[in-house]
């Protein structure tokens, strides 16, 4: 029995030696730090999703239809509450079959109660309301809403727009990061 424990301890020492030869503690520490940062970001996002009762609690503005309030690249925070919808609220809605959700302002509310609320929306910078975007529906019900905008940070989402829309910028940033990691270590 005793000899088996000794053998196991010996084996453990061998493994430890070979691991410490393969990768230094410095690299291990770096990998753990990167994993920690990623895990923290993921936990933060998941907590936001839970608190805001919303699958995308943060959205980036892509178009200018809500100018001058919302500019391209601004970040909006969304919240889902059971409070009645009001005119003037800014909502994000998603029509099945359309790829990009739309963020516009409520200009009409018809309600028999919260469950049966029906709304018409319009972009502040548009001349006409959103009826042509509703794919034949007269009004939108709550089922189509992703969330209600409650706050914003200007330009904070511009990097994601650059990364998504410009291949040159995307590869330049990724390339620069790779080069940096090679040359600065």
């Amino acid at each position, binding site marked *: 029995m005793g000899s088996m424990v000794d053998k196991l301890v010996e084996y453990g020492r061998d493994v430890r030696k070979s691991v410490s030869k393969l990768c230094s503690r410095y690299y291990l520490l770096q990998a753990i730090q990167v994993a920690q940062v990623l895990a923290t970001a993921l936990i933060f996002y998941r907590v936001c999703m839970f608190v805001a009762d919303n699958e995308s609690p943060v959205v980036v503005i892509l178009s200018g239809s809500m100018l001058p309030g919302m500019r391209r690249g601004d970040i909006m925070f969304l919240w889902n509450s059971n409070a009645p919808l009001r005119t003037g609220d800014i909502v994000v809605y998603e029509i099945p079959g359309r790829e990009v959700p739309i963020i516009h302002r409520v*200009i009409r509310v018809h309600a*028999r109660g919260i469950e049966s609320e029906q709304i018409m929306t319009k972009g*502040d910078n548009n001349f006409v309301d959103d009826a042509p975007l509703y794919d034949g529906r007269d009004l939108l019900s709550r089922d189509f809403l992703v969330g209600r905008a409650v706050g914003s*940070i200007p330009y904070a989402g511009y990097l994601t727009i650059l990364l998504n829309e410009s291949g040159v910028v995307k590869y330049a940033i990724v390339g620069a990061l790779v080069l940096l990691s090679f040359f600065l270590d």
Partner: protein
Amino acid sequence: MHSVMARMNQMSSSVLVMGALLLVAVAMSSQWLAREPQLRVAFRRAQVVERGAGMRHRRAGSAQPQKQLVVEFDLEADFTQAWHWNVKNVYVSVVASYNTTQLAPEGAQRRASSTVVTSNGATSDDSHVVVEHHMVLWDRVISSQDEARIFSSDLRSKYSPRHSDGSMVPLDRPMTLHVEYMIFPVVGAFTFGSSALHAFVLNAEES
């Protein structure tokens, strides 16, 4: 320990933390700087006018001119005192509200046994439910403190109040008008507010 990478890492994280703290401070400053704006709206008159068919109805094959309700009102909205460094712009709108009744959907009829009269004049009983309607008649986005004062008489509605099927609102309906606003900050949470209700009975003239 003091490699270029470590220095850059420290610096970028410091910049991010300081930036985030600055944004939170600016956003929170709105709580202390906020002042109530002065708001008042009064109904003047309403008339029904005939206009060319809108794009939606022309597409649907109906080129008939449409009857539209135009509401005229006086508006006073002064945001000059409410303006501060964290205000990017203010969305101000005049909203008309009224109630109608409609047949209750089967199986969802109201349990109330007596007839209910709401403040906006619609009555409901066992077989009917009250439908609330809120419609923006006029709106404007104010982008600077210089233009943050609106004193206008005889403003006309920009949007014709109508139901989802294109029909006009009932012309003999008790209604209310009120001013709503939304302050859009540079950073932080939106602020909503509204004026007192101005009640009137819509008696529209045909032109």
